[in-house]
């Protein structure tokens, strides 16, 4: 897009005024570009350029473009407004001028045009150099230099050993070792209850047969085991049981 319209202009910089008006404004890359193009038609060194004349040209150009009902981008109009203001300032008597002075504004514009022009010419000179693929050519079929990357693998003995430990730990069937708790086994309860019943024919609460202990867990275990043991002894006819009410004490004695 830019290339085509840009070349159009560069190939024909001397087109007559009327013809140039028929060009789409898109042919310029912004107002500064258009100003530079107009400046070049003054055919003087940019340092000698008459900014006032340039402003006149730009404003005339925009007015003509409007008359031709061309679409004009906003930034061109902004530049036109600014240039109109600059022109009026430049025409005013010096005493009435404010800061920055119109001369400075004009000088700034001139400096910007110089810079853009310098880069445009530099770009053209760079493009005109002996370019690879156009003026000079590289080797068509280079063999290429291959770097064969050989990995130097690193590992420490510790890595191997700890990895093995982790595999074993991860994959061994998990062995649940339940810590030994203080419990009274059923066998122990049977033996104990039977032995203690041998000494008494009086009714006594089951709790009274339990061993003394500060361990709640052990006491609970002893109670449960002794209860089952009492039932077993009753089944074997070695003990009698009675209970006055629900949740009342379970009474035990040796059969008469």
């Amino acid at each position, binding site marked *: 897009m830019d290339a085509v319209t840009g070349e159009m202009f560069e190939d024909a910089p001397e087109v007559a005024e009327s013809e140039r008006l028929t060009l789409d404004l898109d042919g310029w890359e912004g107002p500064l570009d258009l100003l530079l193009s107009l400046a070049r038609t003054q055919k003087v060194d940019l340092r000698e350029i008459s900014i006032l004349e340039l402003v006149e040209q730009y404003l005339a150009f925009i007015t003509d473009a409007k008359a031709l009902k061309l679409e004009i981008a906003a930034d061109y109009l902004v530049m036109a407004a600014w240039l109109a203001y600059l022109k009026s300032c430049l025409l005013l008597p010096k005493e009435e001028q404010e800061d920055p002075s119109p001369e400075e504004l004009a000088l700034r514009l001139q400096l910007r045009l110089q810079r853009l022009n310098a880069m445009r010419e530099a770009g053209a000179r760079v493009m005109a150099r002996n370019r690879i693929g156009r003026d000079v050519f590289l080797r*068509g079929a280079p063999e290429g230099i291959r770097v064969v990357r050989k*990995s130097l693998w*690193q*590992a420490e*003995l510790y890595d*191997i050993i700890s990895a093995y*430990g982790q595999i*074993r*730990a*991860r994959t061994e069937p998990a062995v649940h070792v339940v810590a030994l708790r203080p419990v009274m086994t059923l066998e122990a309860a049977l033996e104990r209850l039977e032995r203690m019943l041998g000494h008494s024919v009086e009714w006594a609460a089951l709790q009274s047969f339990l061993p003394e202990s500060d361990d709640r867990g052990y006491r609970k275990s002893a109670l449960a085991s002794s209860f089952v043991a009492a039932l077993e002894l009753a089944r074997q006819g070695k003990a009698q049981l009675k209970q006055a009410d629900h949740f009342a004490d379970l009474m035990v004695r040796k059969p008469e």
Partner: protein
Amino acid sequence: MTEITDDIRSVEATLFAAEEPLTQNDIQQAVGEDVDVKSAIDALTDHYAARGIHLVERGRRWHFETSPDMAHVLRREREEPRKLSRAATETLAIIAYHEPVSRAEIEAIRGVQISKGTLDVLMEAGWVRPAGRREVPGRPLIYATTPVFLSHFGLESRRDLPGLDDLKAAGLLDPVDAALEAMEMDTSDELESAEQDD
């Protein structure tokens, strides 16, 4: 030595820039009718015979190639230190502890499949070698460690590897058990405190 003429220079440049070997006719078309291509080729062949590049003819086509005795500059090795991946480390450990061992056995012990690349890496490192086949159905390849493995890791023999008891003593074997136990303790504590609240 032949004088360098523009004819020779243009044939030289044409052959240099060509993407494939050129016939004499190809060259003639490129450089134009007036050039004596054959003499230019002869002059160039002579000139380059002593250099690092030669102009050679292959099946009536000419091209430049690097001199055969310079092949070593075209291929060079560079060693890059790289850390062994987790999978490779584990696989190496299993081979070291269980050798000789088949791939299926490694996977069974690891509990995870291993990719072909993992064993390749270990063999490339020179630490593992194929050690025959297991005489079972399918005759799977079995792997073992190499002397390079022993020397790299500073081991006299595989017996120097710490045994399971050593690993356990070093705390390398029981992270899972310890965690489980800790969990059980927590649970019983909670139950008790719940009972006490009653």
